[in-house]
């Protein structure tokens, strides 16, 4: 019993120290700017920007090969944040952004075909075959992947409804 505890403790400690030292010597310098940009993005890897996921898009934006406004789910808010971080002015005219929108299901049109729930990158759409689907507001990132998959056009982008749980007092205007 004591021998088992001691030997495994010793083994774990020795391997941990070896790995810790190796990590120190084999450290790879990542670009901290890319990490910062990627953490500001939606992170659902929906692919609408044309890159392989949010990390690749962040790397391209940091390099300057992609526009900071290339993320449709992020919209205007994300473009402004990225512009502030990079210290550049972003052309926002291409973004006709009137606030964040999430997907909603029109119950009278939904036939319960499950096609939308398969393409959702965040599993935000609930539903089984021949049952009316529903969208979890907290999980939807507004990436619009499901809109084209619906055969009856029952999925619509709607502004995020204001509820008691979500309402935030607007900031006072600067004098």
């Amino acid at each position, binding site marked *: 019993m004591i*021998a*088992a505890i001691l*030997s495994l403790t010793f*083994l774990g400690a020795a*391997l941990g120290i070896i*790995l810790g030292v*190796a990590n120190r010597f*084999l450290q*790879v310098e990542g670009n901290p700017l890319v990490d910062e940009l990627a953490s500001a993005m939606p992170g659902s890897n929906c692919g609408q920007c044309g890159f392989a996921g949010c990390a690749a898009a962040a790397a391209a934006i940091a390099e300057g090969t992609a526009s900071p406004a290339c993320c449709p789910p992020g919209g205007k808010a994300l473009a402004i944040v990225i512009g502030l971080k990079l210290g550049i002015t972003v052309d926002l005219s291409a973004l006709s952004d009137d606030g964040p929108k999430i997907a909603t299901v029109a119950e009278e049109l939904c036939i319960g075909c499950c096609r939308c729930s398969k393409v959702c990158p965040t599993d935000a759409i609930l539903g089984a075959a021949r049952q009316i689907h529903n969208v979890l507001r907290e999980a939807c990132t507004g990436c619009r992947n499901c809109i084209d998959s619906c055969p009856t056009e029952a999925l619509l982008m709607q502004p995020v409804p204001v509820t008691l749980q979500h309402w935030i007092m607007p900031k006072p205007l600067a004098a």
Partner: protein
Amino acid sequence: MSEFILLLLSTALVNNVVLIKFLGLCPVMGVSKSVDSAFGMGLATTFVITLAAGASWMLDNWLLAPFGLGYLRILTFILVIAAVVQFTEMFIRKTSPGLYQSLGIYLPLITTNCAVLGVALLNVEQKFSLFKSLLYGFGSALGFTLVLLIFAGLRERVALARVPDAFAGAPISFITISLLALAFMGFSGLNI
């Protein structure tokens, strides 16, 4: 000397770890889409299996056996394998970022590659010496790499061939690898 060569040959070809013992099938199906990444995966797994075989032999003979802790064998081996894989991952990320990208999730999954644990456990079972168990690990890994490379080459050609719709994708890969396994059965006729 000839004994060692025979051990190497018999582990790599006759008792091939993938096609005869059916261990480590997940990376064989997963990373065999291109020869380049298959070669990288083969090298990484060779490194891990050889090192894990040696380390597990030392632990078993110098730590577990003297204290009568044989029942901790699987736990200890998994610990050592996980550490070796972690080290390999750091090393590859440092030395070859391209390979690190192309191996992706399959690199940390070497931890759960049953060929690694299987070789370590088979080593103990057969009561080899340290050098022989290193050779056994290296031979098994060589066989693994060989199968991975052959299969990746086959899949690259199958990808260009016209395959009936019902067989496209994974089914034709399974049929291909079963034919490859049949071919490897031929080595069991070798009298070594």
